[in-house]
């Protein structure tokens, strides 16, 4: 049997220590509890922080268990369940916005389409449920990457496909955009997956607080990105995603 990975073992020890304390612990205190140098402990905590497994009190700098960790074991959300719960809100978003709606869940650097509502103009369209989309070039994908910093960092390890001349393939630029996405709560793309097609998406949170999916609209750039429409469409997408989040809490 191959040996264990030391850093994972140490991270687990840290998490157990915080859990046993029943509250918050400082770096020095933690380093002492797990018998590691303070710098090593700090490095581990920063990684755990970035994946949402611990949280840091901005006032005291002390650490507690993160919402991401709590959401992990307690609630596995079935993709078909997610579709069923999202269906009414996705329909309503399509009817109000006039654009096609997709609900995606993460699959590494790709997105699985778990629900697809046609653009309500009765034009010929094909069901895309089950299709995989590249995360870096789609709005739903960016939302999902933004919620998974560890996955997002692996973007620097692989060459990003330039699907159109507008696809963002510079990892640093993409990471900056993901950070902006996290901060404002929605993502967009303009002709980055297919030329002429734009998208807007927002996160859907599961009961544990983790982002479990991304709900978004897509359509012709000139319609979706029209100065008069853009703000209203973003608000619609964010509100619809929030409605699905609320639905999942019930």
């Amino acid at each position, binding site marked *: 049997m191959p040996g264990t990975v030391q850093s994972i073992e140490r991270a687990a020890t840290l998490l157990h220590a915080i859990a046993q304390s029943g509250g918050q612990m400082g770096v020095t205190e933690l380093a002492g509890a797990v018998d590691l140098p303070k710098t090593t402990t700090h490095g581990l905590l920063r990684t755990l922080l970035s994946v949402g497994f611990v949280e840091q009190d901005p006032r005291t700098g002390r650490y507690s268990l993160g919402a991401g960790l709590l959401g992990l074991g307690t609630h596995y959300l*079935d993709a*078909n369940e997610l579709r069923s719960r999202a*269906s009414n809100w996705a*329909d309503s978003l399509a*009817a109000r916005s006039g654009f096609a709606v997709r609900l995606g869940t993460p699959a590494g650097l790709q997105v699985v389409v778990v*629900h697809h509502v*046609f653009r309500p103009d009765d034009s010929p*369209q094909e069901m895309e449920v089950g299709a995989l989309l590249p995360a870096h070039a789609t709005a739903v994908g960016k939302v999902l990457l933004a919620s998974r910093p560890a996955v997002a960092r692996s973007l620097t390890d692989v060459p990003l496909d330039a699907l159109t001349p507008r696809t963002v393939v510079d990892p640093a630029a993409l990471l900056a955009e993901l950070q902006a996405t996290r901060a404002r709560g929605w993502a967009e793309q303009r002709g980055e997956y297919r030329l002429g097609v734009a998208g807007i998406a927002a996160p859907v949170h599961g009961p544990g607080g983790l982002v479990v999916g991304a709900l978004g609209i897509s359509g012709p750039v000139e319609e979706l990105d029209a100065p008069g429409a853009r703000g209203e469409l973003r608000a619609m997408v964010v509100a619809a995603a929030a409605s699905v989040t609320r639905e999942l809490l019930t």
Partner: protein
Amino acid sequence: MRERYVLAVDQGTTSTRSIVFDRGGRLVAVRQREHRQHFPRPGWVEHDPEEIWANTQLTAAQALRDVAAGPGQVVALGIANQRETTVVWERATGRPVVNALVWQDTRTGPLVERLAARPDAALVRERTGLELAGYFAGPRLRWVLDAVPRARERAERGELLAGTMESWLVWNLTGGADGGVHVTDVTNASRTLLMDVRTCEWDADLLDFFGVPAAMLPEIRPSVGVLGTASALPVPLPIGGALGDQQAALFGQTCFAPGEAKCTYGTGSFLLQNTGTELVRSRHGLISTVAYQLAGEPVHYALEGSIAVTGALVQWLRDSLGLIGSAPEVETLARTVSDNGGCYVVPAFSGLLAPHWEGRARGLVAGLTSYVTKGHLARAVLEATGWQTRDVVRAMDADSGLPRTALRVDGGMTTNNLLMQFVADAIDCSVVRPMVGETVSLGAAYAAGLAVGVWSDTGALRRNWHRSAQWVPDPARVTALDAAYPDWEHAVRLSIAWGERP
């Protein structure tokens, strides 16, 4: 132009919902309240009509408040209701003499068997277009008249009133004991076994056959047309229309042309096909029913295939077997395998409705081998809905001879992609889902809105209909399912034979 809204009340089996729609047919407010299910004895299912009336007032008031529309912006009320559920109440007090007998209630079984043995029983099918079955309202009314002391003489004197749920609600909405209007819509009346389906009037011979006094019955009115003013609401509204829920869904799906069909996939499933103004009599186990009638226009008919158990089979997998945690997870479990492994489930929990009408058939799982896993069972459960749809569609093709257009679907099970693709493959026809899934309420709103001029004609309603999803048959799968269909038919025969065991 100032937006105008229509309020729809969907009085269903488990809850009462009040929904407000705008002129685009978009949903703008929803309020819902469940009511208690009473099971006083095995096979008996009752609702308290007064609780349902209270829930109607409450949810309607809430939904009207939610829209926060200006005065006069909500212009009409439409009603869709659970069909065949029967209420009998006192004209003077508005008090029900018994709880409502719900459409799922099987207490009239022995009564119907006695009636079916009479030499003149063929009259029923001939006049009503329906099967003589306990599923319809007439036998329930007869049961109440037999069971409640002095009910028959009081009914004959006009002291008791009877009706399906929309009659009860309209009577209360329009004033109740203080001048309430006692009417029923023609789609609901067509489900009683008491109405001549060609003349759309109560039939004296049928009333005699079932022993129901004419004095207690409501006046039959068109589905679209003002029935009265709902003065009991915070804002009095004209009641512009009423339809049985499945007919309302047909209307909401805008199936206005002969051949257009919809299937609502819920606990049970109901496939209705518009057959136009000519009554088509089924020779293949469907029922002929009224689809809708606009005031001053001829009645439109439909062929109906009623399937008792579809979504309820998935609930059984969840609640009785515990194989899944939630209904949508059935798709996840079914996708762990690529086919049914030779397994078939016939969900004849309380007999089979269309196209078999075998009240004594009982459910079975056929084709078990040690190879079959829970994944195969989940697949067989979903396929049972697809196969039953095929049974009904095949009968419909044989009866109507109308060219089949895409099947319009709605209801909770339509978010199940595996099932919807299976249906498309099993019936070799495209399956389409509309943008507004709430087709029952939408149909009631459309009926009421047409009556007061929110929409000019049915063409305007058609323009509101948009596809949200479509499943196209895959030729290879169509061939494979054609080859498997005889196995399903065999399993159905076995479930019927089981019910006939000595």
